[in-house]
């Protein structure tokens, strides 16, 4: 039966020939070779994008991987990484067997051990910790997709010291979004690609949502929608923008506020939308000095109040019959109150946010800012679209059509990785909401399970840590105020990474980038074991790499390592493996089970929820085990309560068993599809023993399509909200109110003023007062504010090339050919001013150190900015690369010169180099100067580090690859 094409690439100009019968050419070409003996449909893991792939297996080997046309994420397309999966799977850098360190830490000298020995070493060590002080285990993972398991495991173990890669990556985007609109950019929302007419892209050249964004951009281009990119670098997506705004790094917030300023001044905001879906009308108490100053006004019953401008009385903010005002100043019970919107107008109409005031700082002409504002207003208000679909809102009001303002936005890395990223992210959401473009046709759309009422629950647990006792919840969560912080009486952090402390109150993803320093310094306390998974902490997943490596190998007076024991699991011989005492070799993504879960990072899109699995499509040819199964077995050996049955036996056979049978809350497990004994339920239902097979039969994923009336206005759409409750996404079918004014932040401010039970130490108070502003604001990134700008006149950024984004690409024989040496890209005029010419070698110097690399002159970059491809530089002896590889001779790692701490404040305290609200690592704050190398210094990178020894039985990487020749030989032999 012929079915309509599902694939993204199915335009008439992308289809097969009308007649695909081979012509009678007579040249002997076999036009119909057999491709595979079988096709396994699973989920890609070459990055975090979670695309569906068809793996063609021929003669027991992977012949070919292409995109799954039915898959909601990639709809048949596949990126440069996905097609190179074969080279990752057959990488010579794959670990082969558990390893135990024999030489000094960091040398790479190991002996191979059996799994049983590995398990007993780990079990003995960890059980001693659990019996005495569970927080002495710090468990940090990288970009893995099993955080609902790993976090739960940590919780069962009883340690609060758990986090994944998010604190280094993009927690500013997560928290900025979740605390404002109850959803976020990242991979948890998407522009309405089919309807948007004006798309603004902030700080993104490639992203988590790799293929969906590319597919979307293709749609915009095909439709002639306008693409505006705001990015210092004109690469990737920015290359195809109709308008490239080469902004100065860290000033996006100012730019956005200037747009808001213009829109407000011209009265181009959607007041109706603000009243219906936001807290713009809520009254804020304005009583300086009071314990509730800046909090929302509430009546005796705790109901939030607005001001009815007709009745001229306070009224419940959720009273649908009221006529709430947005402006003015009112006195209620003798206390002055003003609506949130009044505060917004007061702040952003100030001349300090006018285009002329910000233009120079942003490096954007004021006229350009005014033009963009005018275009936004024009498209939002003059090109309104209406879908002929009736829907009903949470209050039961029926709407005959779905109205939309076709302006959409997406933002990520360039916003996130600055110390002002949280507020900048909120600023962008504020802009979207003022225009009325969130979850409307043509706007930014939530992907389920979002939106959730900001801030979403639950709160982080770990206030009390007791031997042999699980935490009372998950280690990571969302705080609503100082009472939720994980600090002791003296204000000292409970967690090793100081998340949820005054240093980083809303560190919802933890701060993995502080763990090694904290553990080394014993601040706030020493730990015993650092367990890490798939996270290259001794190289490109740390800032200040040189010192980080030194801390990993540093010992105390007695000669003991200051971080006593390191367990590390990875599939490949990365730069971090040699620093481990015990190495647990993981499988490749084609050899394992995984679930891409609604409890974690699902594959939903805006038109419906979905999740997916990975399943082994080839058998490992080495003595390796999937880390998740190892963790489950470790949990059972340790006797962690939820990992054992009542009789002490292991509850789960392996990860696959866990995926099917684990229930986080009754009826809700890792996978939402085919639940219930017969597989008929979605979302909630009993475990289904055939669940994995049902997934496999369906192409490796489950996806549910919303009814037409559920697709937009999810924050207030009754039909959607009911569905979300039924699925367990949200507890109650209540509207999600966008928090333009973020009250939880104000609670921290009040604590800084001495109010409440939990107050910050004296030294932290000014910082909390300043940065926990309930309305977004702009401040200069910390490093820029701290250094002499004459000395360090340039911003320095790094970005992963598209073909390696979130992948472990330098071991990949195909991908590394594309980029094996990174250059420092410098604007022509900037270089000319420094007397530099193309291909010169320069020292790139920051306050934290210097690194040497080769420059390439470009036009498409902000003139005060230099940038390079990230993580191309590799340490000699790692990743199966040969000693002469460009990666370790000419490529460089900018992380070497990015500080992991801020400059000391007046009291001498140094904070982590992070956003003060979320703890997001601020690796885009870097300031540098360029110094031309002496002639004899040119041609090779520095600093250089000692070459790692190779693990036992590691074969030298081949001198020649003829992958695929075997398939041809077999074909020709068969003829």
């Amino acid at each position, binding site marked *: 039966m012929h079915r309509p094409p599902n694939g993204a690439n199915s335009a008439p100009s992308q289809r097969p020939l009308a007649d695909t019968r081979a012509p009678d050419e007579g040249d002997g070409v076999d036009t119909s070779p057999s491709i595979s003996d079988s096709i396994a449909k699973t989920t890609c893991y070459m990055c975090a994008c979670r695309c569906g792939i068809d793996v063609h297996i021929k003669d027991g080997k992977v012949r070919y991987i292409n995109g799954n046309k039915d898959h909601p994420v990639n709809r048949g397309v596949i990126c440069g990484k996905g097609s190179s999966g074969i080279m990752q799977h057959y990488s010579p850098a794959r670990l082969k067997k558990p390893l135990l360190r024999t030489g000094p830490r960091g040398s790479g000298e190991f002996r191979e051990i059996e799994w049983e020995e590995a398990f007993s070493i780990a079990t003995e060590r960890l059980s001693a910790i659990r019996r005495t002080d569970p927080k002495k285990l710090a468990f940090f993972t990288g970009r893995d997709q099993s955080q609902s398991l790993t976090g739960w495991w940590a919780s069962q173990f009883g340690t609060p010291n758990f986090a994944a890669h998010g604190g280094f990556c993009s927690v500013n985007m997560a928290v900025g979004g979740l605390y404002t609109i109850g959803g976020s950019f990242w991979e948890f929302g998407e522009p309405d690609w089919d309807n948007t007419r004006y798309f603004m892209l902030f700080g993104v050249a490639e992203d988590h949502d790799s293929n969906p964004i590319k597919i979307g951009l293709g749609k915009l281009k095909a439709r002639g929608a306008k693409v505006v990119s705001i990015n210092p670098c004109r690469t990737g997506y920015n290359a195809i923008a109709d308008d490239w705004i080469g902004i100065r790094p860290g000033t996006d917030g100012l730019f956005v506020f200037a747009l808001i300023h213009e829109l407000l001044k011209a009265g181009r905001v959607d007041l109706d939308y603000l009243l219906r879906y936001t807290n713009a009308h809520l009254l804020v108490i304005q009583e300086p000095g009071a314990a509730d100053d800046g909090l929302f006004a509430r009546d005796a019953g705790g109901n939030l109040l607005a001001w009815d401008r007709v009745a001229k009385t306070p009224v419940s903010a959720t009273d649908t019959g009221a006529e709430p005002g947005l402006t003015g100043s009112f006195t209620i019970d003798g206390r002055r109150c003003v609506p949130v919107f009044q505060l917004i107008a007061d702040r952003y109409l100030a001349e300090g946010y006018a285009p002329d005031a910000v233009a120079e700082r942003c490096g954007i002409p004021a006229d350009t800012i005014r033009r963009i504002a005018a275009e936004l207003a024009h498209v939002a208000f003059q090109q309104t679209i209406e879908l002929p679909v009736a829907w009903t809102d949470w209050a039961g009001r029926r709407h005959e059509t779905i109205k939309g303002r076709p302006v959409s936005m997406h933002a990520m890395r360039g916003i996130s990785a600055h110390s002002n990223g949280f507020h900048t992210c909120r600023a962008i959401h504020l802009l979207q909401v003022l225009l009325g473009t969130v979850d409307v046709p043509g706007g930014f759309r939530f992907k389920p399970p979002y939106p959730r009422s900001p801030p979403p629950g639950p709160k982080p647990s770990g206030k009390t840590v007791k031997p042999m006792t699980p935490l009372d919840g998950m280690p990571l969560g969302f705080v609503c105020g100082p009472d939720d912080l994980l600090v002791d009486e003296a204000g000292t952090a409970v967690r090793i990474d100081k998340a949820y402390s005054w240093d980083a109150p809303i560190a919802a993803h933890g701060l993995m980038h502080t763990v090694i320093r904290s553990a080394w310094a014993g601040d706030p306390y020493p730990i015993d074991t650092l367990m890490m998974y798939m996270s290259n902490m001794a190289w490109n997943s740390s800032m200040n790499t040189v010192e980080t490596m030194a801390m990993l190998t540093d010992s105390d007076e007695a000669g003991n390592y200051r971080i006593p024991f390191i367990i590390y699991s990875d599939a490949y011989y990365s730069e971090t493996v040699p620093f481990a005492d015990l190495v647990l070799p993981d499988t490749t993504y084609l050899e394992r089970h995984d679930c891409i879960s609604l409890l974690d990072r699902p594959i939903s899109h805006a038109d419906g929820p979905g999740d997916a699995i990975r399943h082994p499509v080839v058998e490992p040819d080495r003595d390796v085990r999937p880390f998740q199964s190892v963790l489950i077995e470790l949990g059972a050996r340790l006797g962690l309560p939820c990992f054992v049955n009542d009789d002490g036996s292991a509850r789960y056979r392996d990860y696959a068993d866990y995926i099917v049978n684990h229930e986080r809350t009754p009826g809700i497990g890792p996978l939402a599809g085919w639940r219930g004994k017969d597989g008929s339920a979605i979302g909630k239902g009993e475990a289904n023993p055939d669940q994995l097979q049902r997934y496999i039969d369906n192409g490796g994923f489950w996806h549910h399509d919303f009814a037409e009336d559920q697709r937009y206005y999810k924050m207030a759409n009754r039909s959607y909200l009911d569905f979300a409750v039924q699925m367990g996404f949200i507890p109650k079918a209540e509207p999600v109110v966008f928090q333009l004014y973020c009250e939880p932040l104000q609670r921290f401010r009040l604590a800084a003023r001495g109010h409440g039970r939990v107050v910050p130490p004296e030294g932290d108070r000014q910082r909390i007062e300043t940065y926990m502003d309930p309305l977004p604001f702009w401040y200069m990134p910390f490093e820029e504010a701290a250094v002499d700008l004459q000395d360090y006149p340039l911003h320095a950024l790094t970005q992963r090339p598209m073909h390696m984004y979130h992948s472990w690409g330098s071991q990949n024989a195909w991908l590394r*050919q*594309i*980029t*094996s*040496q990174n250059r420092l890209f410098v604007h022509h005029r900037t270089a000319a001013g420094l007397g530099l010419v193309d291909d010169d070698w320069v020292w790139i110097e920051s306050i934290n150190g210097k690194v040497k690399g080769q420059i*390439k002159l*470009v*036009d*498409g970059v902000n003139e005060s900015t230099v940038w390079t491809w990230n993580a191309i530089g590799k340490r000699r002896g790692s990743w199966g690369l040969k000693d002469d590889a*460009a990666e370790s001779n000419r490529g460089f790692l900018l992380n070497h010169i990015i500080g992991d701490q801020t400059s000391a404040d007046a009291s001498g305290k140094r904070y982590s180099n992070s956003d003060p609200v979320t703890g997001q690592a601020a690796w885009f704050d870097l300031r540098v100067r360029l110094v031309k190398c002496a002639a004899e210094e040119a041609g090779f990178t520095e600093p250089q580090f000692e070459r790692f020894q190779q693990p036992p039985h590691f074969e030298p990487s081949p001198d020649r690859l003829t992958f695929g020749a075997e398939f041809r030989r077999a074909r020709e032999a068969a003829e």
Partner: protein
Amino acid sequence: MHPAFSVVFFTTATGAGYGLLALLGVLGGFQIIPPDFWLGLIGMGLALGLIIAGLLSSAGHLGRPERAWRAFSQWRSSWLSREGVASVITFVPAGLFGIGWVFFGRSGGWVTIAGLLAAIGAVVTVCTTGMIYASLKPIAQWHSRFTLPGYLFFSAMTGSVLLNALLQGFAIGSKTLLAASVLLGLLGWGWKVTTWRYNDRLEIPTNANSATGLAGGTVRSLEWPHTEENYLLKEMGFRIARKHSARLRQITQALAFALPVLLLAAAFALPWPFAAMLSVLAAIAQFAGMLVERWLFFAEAKHTVTLYYGR
């Protein structure tokens, strides 16, 4: 273009060899040079030796030399195939001429015919070699009216200088041949200098704009598709510094043209064996000079694919 030694030697050696063969075929066939076993053996040996060494060298350039026989099949479209065919066919009359002229000590009759045919074959083969290069549109320095005559002139020049050295060596030098060699040397010199001047002023319509289809303004290469050099760059992306090239042009002019012309002019005035010694020296210098000339012929040729790489 990458100046691979195999190809540099091939074109230089066969050029000289075919030049010598053509002269021997004509002059021997018409008894202008009387049959002499040792002269003939060395002369024909040198000519065929250079040709064979050149052809073997070119086969060394092949990825699959064992399949070289296939190269004779596409003479209808391919100058390389035509060259192969012509070179092989030329061996037939050349061999017959050699047998008749050297071993039978004969000329006239079928030997003359064979000599003439060998000469024609030699000229045709050199033409086909020249046309291999002259027909390549992506390389403007080759795809010019200078290339084919250049190959012919240089073949005649090196052949005549070799023949002169040979005859001088056997003390039967001819003033006419000496004069012809000097004149051919001057012609070759002039031709080369004119070619260089032409190439230096060449305005090539193909540029980065037309290569990429991006109209107007400037097109600058930002990043290559791969960090390291690939086949295209190794084979066709060869670059030579202007300074280096100027020096090599001077060396070419000195060795291939000026020195041989001077030596041969001096040989006019000097008796045997000095004239012979100078003639042999002229031939050796010229061959070395022509190797440099041919190296430059490749090194200075710019292939359009380099436009994609910003070279």
